[in-house]
């Protein structure tokens, strides 16, 4: 428990923020130059394939952050760990941002390739539902701020939302959709040529670093809020 004391955490947070700040722009420039200049165009889609380098990492981040906050909320509901609550609260807005970005960039990719901005197919609709769950989740922090019901409400949203995650993931395999199936599988080989995988993972790294930076800053803000509230008692 002592390891998780705010005093120890805040030292690491400051170190991490400094570290990310020092390497972020270097990684960003490398990532962008691979994504926009060095990587080849696709045999079929031409240069539009470059949208993939922001679309796919955003979608991955949106999905994984929701899984993390949902599991965190449920663990918090059962075990009542204060830290976990702050963790979830700091992470949620980042997930919402990237889910929205995945939808918007997907739309900008869909227009030149499919010929439409939007289609009500299973993948796109379930992604929109994920965005709504994020909105409910973040709204309930504000609406039920001082209510004792907050953990219950967050848990309910988490349960419903986490069921949606495998639906998003496998929607392209289970049902006929306009969206193409996944190119990168957890098991087995990917159907993206290696010269395109390099910018994809570089951009993923850039966005993950960004997420970590925002998360640490938000987490630090939450710690300071608590300290400020408790200042009288010190």
């Amino acid at each position: 428990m002592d390891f998780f004391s705010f005093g120890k955490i805040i030292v690491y947070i400051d170190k991490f923020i400094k570290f990310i700040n020092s390497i972020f722009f270097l990684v960003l420039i490398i990532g962008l130059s691979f994504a926009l200049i060095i990587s080849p165009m696709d045999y079929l889609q031409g240069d539009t394939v470059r949208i993939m380098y922001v679309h796919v990492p955003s979608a991955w981040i949106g999905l994984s952050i929701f899984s993390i906050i949902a599991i965190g909320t449920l663990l918090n509901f059962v075990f009542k760990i204060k830290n976990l609550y702050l963790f979830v609260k700091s992470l949620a807005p980042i997930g919402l941002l990237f889910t929205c970005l995945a939808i918007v960039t997907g739309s900008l990719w869909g227009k030149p390739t499919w010929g439409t901005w939007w289609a009500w197919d299973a993948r796109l609709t379930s992604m929109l539902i994920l965005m709504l769950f994020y909105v409910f989740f973040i709204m309930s922090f504000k609406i039920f701020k001082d209510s004792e019901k907050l953990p219950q409400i967050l848990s309910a949203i988490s349960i419903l939302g986490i069921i949606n995650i495998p639906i998003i993931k496998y929607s392209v395999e289970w049902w006929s959709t306009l969206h193409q199936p996944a190119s990168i599988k957890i098991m087995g080989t990917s159907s993206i040529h290696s010269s395109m995988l390099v910018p994809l993972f570089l951009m993923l790294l850039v966005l993950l670093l960004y997420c970590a930076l925002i998360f640490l800053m938000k987490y630090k803000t939450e710690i300071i809020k608590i300290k400020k509230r408790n200042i009288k008692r010190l």
Partner: protein
Amino acid sequence: MLTKKIKTRLFFLLSVIFITLLFLAFIYFSLKQNILYFKTPSEIFIVDGIKSNSKIRVGGMVKKDSIQQNNKEIKFILTDYKKELIVVYNGAIPNLFSEERGAVVEGKLNDKSYLIADRILAKHDENYMPPEMKKILENAK
């Protein structure tokens, strides 16, 4: 290690999850048909209940050498390698639409093998590679 309070909450949580899953399964089975974005030409052929004046989406491959284009309209055959469907359309065509590629057409069925489309969407697969790589693959065939 688990206190009684924690056990109660855990039990409560699991029962909520169970009920939610049941509920979702119920929704899924009642909406099953609507989840599919498009039908295949074979499915159209089998199903009798398609009303000819309601809109429908059909997806498949554009058959090789089947595109006939004049200045007014484009006509092609959509196939799933079992059954074929003739599609007539006038309007904007997406850039990726071409022979032996996937497409989804939206429109009204005239009869089971003839569809008047008012929208065409191109569907692409999950393979991404540089043009040179594609050539190498094609030569290897």
